[in-house]
C-alpha cells in the first residue's frame, strides 16, 4: 500500500502548492516591479508637472516685470497688458505651483519663491505701476530699475536652482523608471520562462507519471479483453498509478491462472468423457465376446445331444470365458481400488526370481510362435505382495506376446543392482508409436490396439504402475515403433531377506 505522503494525490497536491506559491511569488515580484515602475513614472510625471508649473510661474513674473518696465519707460498703458494678464493669472499659478511642490523635497524652496514673488508683486511691482501712473518720473529713477532687477534676479536664481533640482529629480526618476521598467520586463520574461518551464515540467511529469501508465493500462486492458491473458504492465508510475499497474498485473495473473485451470478442468472433463466412452466401448466389447461364447456353447449343450468329449470341450470353453470375464471384472475392481487409494498390498518377504520363473513358465505354453528367454540373478529377495507383483509380470509378458503378433523372442531378465531389483521384459514386436507413448500408462488407453484387433481393456499397465509405485518402485519403458518395446521395473531389494517361502503363483492378467 502506498504511503499517504508518497501517494500520487499527495504528490499532485504538493506540486500544485509549490507551483501556486512559485507563480504567486513571480506575480508578487512582477506586481512589485510594476508598482515601483508606476511610482517612478509618477514621480517623473510629478517632477515634470512641477517644472511646468515653475516655468509657467517664472514666465508670469517675467511678464509682469516686462509689462511694468514698459509702462515705466514709455508711460503707455497698452504696454502694461502683459503685466495685467500676468497679475490676473498669478494667484492661480502660485496656487498650482505651491500645490505641485507640496510633497516635494524642494517644498521649502518653493515656499521661499512664493514669498519672493508675492513680495515682488505687492512690495514692488504693483507700487511701481501705480507710481508710474501717478508720478512717472518717480518710477524712472535708477532705484526702480535696480530694485526690480535685484528682485527679479533673486527670483530667477531661485527658479534656476529649483528647476535644476527638479531636472535632476526628473532625470533620476526617469532613470529609476527605466531601470524599474527593465527590471519588470526582465522579471516578467524570467517569470514567464520559469512558469513555462514549470508547466512543461509538470506536464511531462503528469504524462510520464499518469498519462503514459494509464495509456499502457488501457492498451493492456484492451489486449486482456481480446483474450491475451499474458499481458502484463511495466511496474512503473508513482503511488496510485503504481498500485494500479500492480493490481492490473495481479488481476491478469489470476485471470490467466483461472483460465489455465479452467482449460485443465475442461481437458480433464474431455478426457473423462473420452475415457467413459472408451470404457463403455471396451466393457461392451470385452464382456460381449466371452459372454457370447458362454451363451453360445451353453445353448449348444442345451439343444443338442453331444458326446462326453465334446461336452467337456464346450464346458472347458465356458469355464475359460467365465474366468476371462472374472479377470476383466477383477481388473476393473483393481483399477477402481487404485483410483480410490484402496489398493491393499501384503508386505512379506518374497523372491522375485521365483515369480519371474513361474510366470515365464505359464506364458511359455500359451503361444507357439513366441520364444520366452529368461535370465535371472538368483535369488532376488524383496518385500511385497507376491500375487500383485506376479500380476504385474504377467501383464508385461501378456503385452509382449500380444503386441508381437508375428511371434519372436521375448526376453525376461531379473537382476540385482545397487539395492534394487531390476526386471526387464523385451519384445521385438510392433513397438509403441511416439504419439502414444506419453499416454501408455493412462487407464483405458489402448491407442491403435483396438483397431489392430488386439484384445484388452487398457487397464493392465495402469494397474501395474499403481502396484509398482505402491511397492516404492518405478516402472518405465523404451520403445521404437516397428522394432519392439522394453518395459522395466525397479523395486527395492531386501538385502537380508529369505523369500522362498512366500513366492506367489498367480496366473495371467
Amino acid at each position, binding site marked *: 500500500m502506498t504511503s499517504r505522503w508518497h501517494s500520487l494525490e499527495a504528490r499532485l497536491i504538493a506540486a500544485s502548492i509549490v507551483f501556486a506559491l512559485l507563480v504567486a511569488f513571480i506575480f508578487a515580484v512582477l506586481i512589485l516591479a510594476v508598482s515601483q515602475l508606476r511610482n517612478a513614472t509618477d514621480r517623473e510625471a510629478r517632477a515634470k508637472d512641477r517644472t511646468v508649473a515653475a516655468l509657467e510661474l517664472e514666465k508670469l513674473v517675467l511678464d509682469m516685470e516686462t509689462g511694468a518696465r514698459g509702462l515705466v519707460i514709455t508711460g503707455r498703458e497698452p504696454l502694461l497688458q502683459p503685466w495685467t494678464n500676468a497679475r490676473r493669472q498669478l494667484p492661480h499659478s502660485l496656487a498650482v505651483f505651491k500645490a505641485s511642490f507640496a510633497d516635494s523635497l524642494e517644498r*521649502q*524652496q518653493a515656499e*521661499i519663491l512664493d514669498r519672493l514673488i508675492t*513680495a515682488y508683486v*505687492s*512690495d*514692488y511691482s*504693483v*507700487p*511701481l505701476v501705480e*507710481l508710474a501712473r*501717478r*508720478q512717472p*518720473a*518717480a*518710477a524712472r*529713477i535708477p*532705484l*526702480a530699475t535696480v*530694485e526690480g532687477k535685484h528682485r527679479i534676479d533673486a527670483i530667477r536664481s531661485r527658479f534656476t*536652482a529649483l528647476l535644476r533640482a527638479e531636472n535632476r529629480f526628473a532625470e533620476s526618476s526617469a532613470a529609476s523608471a527605466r531601470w524599474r521598467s527593465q527590471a519588470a520586463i526582465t522579471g516578467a520574461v524570467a517569470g514567464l520562462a520559469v512558469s513555462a518551464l514549470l508547466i512543461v515540467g509538470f506536464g511531462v511529469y503528469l504524462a510520464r507519471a499518469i498519462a503514459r501508465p494509464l495509456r499502457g493500462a488501457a492498451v493492456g486492458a484492451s489486449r486482456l479483453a481480446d483474450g491475451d491473458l499474458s499481458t502484463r504492465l511495466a511496474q512503473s508510475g508513482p503511488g496510485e498509478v503504481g498500485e494500479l499497474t500492480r493490481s492490473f498485473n495481479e488481476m491478469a495473473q489470476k485471470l490467466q491462472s483461472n483460465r489455465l485451470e479452467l482449460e485443465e478442468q475442461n481437458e480433464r472433463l474431455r478426457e473423462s468423457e473420452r475415457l467413459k466412452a472408451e470404457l463403455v466401448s471396451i466393457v461392451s466389447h470385452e464382456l460381449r465376446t466371452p459372454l457370447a461364447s458362454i451363451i453360445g456353447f451353453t445353448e449348444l449343450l442345451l439343444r443338442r445331444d453331444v458326446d462326453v468329449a465334446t461336452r467337456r470341450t464346450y464346458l472347458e470353453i465356458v469355464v475359460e470365458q467365465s474366468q476371462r470375464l472374472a479377470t476383466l471384472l477383477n481388473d476393473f475392481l483393481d483399477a477402481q481400488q487404485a483410483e480410490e487409494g484402496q489398493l491393499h498390498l501384503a508386505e512379506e518377504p518374497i523372491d522375485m526370481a521365483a515369480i519371474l520363473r513361474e510366470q515365464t513358465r505359464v506364458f511359455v505354453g500359451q503361444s507357439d510362435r513366441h520364444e520366452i528367454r529368461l535370465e535371472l540373478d538368483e535369488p532376488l529377495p524383496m518385500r511385497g505382495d507376491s500375487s500383485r507383483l506376479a500380476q504385474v509380470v504377467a501383464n508385461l509378458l501378456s503385452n509382449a506376446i500380444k503386441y508381437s503378433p508375428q511371434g519372436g523372442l521375448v526376453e525376461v531378465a531379473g537382476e540385482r543392482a545397487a539395492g534394487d531389483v531390476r526386471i526387464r521384459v523385451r519384445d521385438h514386436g510392433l513397438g509403441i508409436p511416439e504419439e502414444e507413448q506419453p499416454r501408455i500408462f493412462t487407464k483405458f488407453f489402448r491407442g491403435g490396439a483396438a483397431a489392430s484387433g488386439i484384445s484388452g481393456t487398457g487397464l493392465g499397465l495402469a494397474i501395474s504402475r499403481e502396484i509398482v509405485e505402491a511397492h516404492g518402485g518405478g516402472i518405465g519403458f523404451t520403445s521404437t515403433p516397428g522394432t519392439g518395446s522394453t518395459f522395466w521395473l525397479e523395486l527395492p531389494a531386501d538385502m537380508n531377506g529369505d523369500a522362498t517361502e512366500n513366492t506367489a503363483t498367480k496366473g495371467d492378467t
Partner: protein
Amino acid sequence: MNRNLATALAALCAALLFPASSTALRGPGTIRITGRQIRFTRVDTGLPGRSPGDMEISRIQLYNTRLRDKPIGHAQLVCIYTGDSSRNCTGTFVLPAGKLVVSGGLIYRSLYDLAVTGGTGLYSNVRGTLTVTRIRQNPPRDVLLFRLVVS
C-alpha cells in the same frame, strides 16, 4: 547659501519678537517689515513752499504682519530739503533686537532707498540698504526692506 539665508531669517524673526540680546548678527540678512506713518510734520522755513531748509519729521509704527498684528517697533525719520524736492534724511528704526540707523538722500517718498549706517544690539555690526516702497497713500503705508550685511 539658501540654508544660511533661512537661518538668518529665522534669527531675525526671533530677534524681532524677543528682547535684544548681546549677540550680534553673524551673517547677511533681509528684514521686511511694513511701516505705517502715524504722524507727519512739515516745518516750512525760508521761502514759502518747498525750499532748501524745510524739514519733514515722520513718526512711523513698524509691523510684521506675518508674525503679529500689533506693532513690533517704531521709527522716526527727519528729512531736510536741500532743493525743491530733494532732501537728506536720517532715521532710526527701533526694533525688538536693536536699532538700525539710516541715512541718505531722496527725491520721491514713493520709492527711495537709504543707507544703513549702523545699529545697536543685534545690529551693532551691520550696514546695508533700506529700500522703501509706498504701497498705500492714505494713510501712508510703506514696505521697508532692509538688506543687511555684516561689516
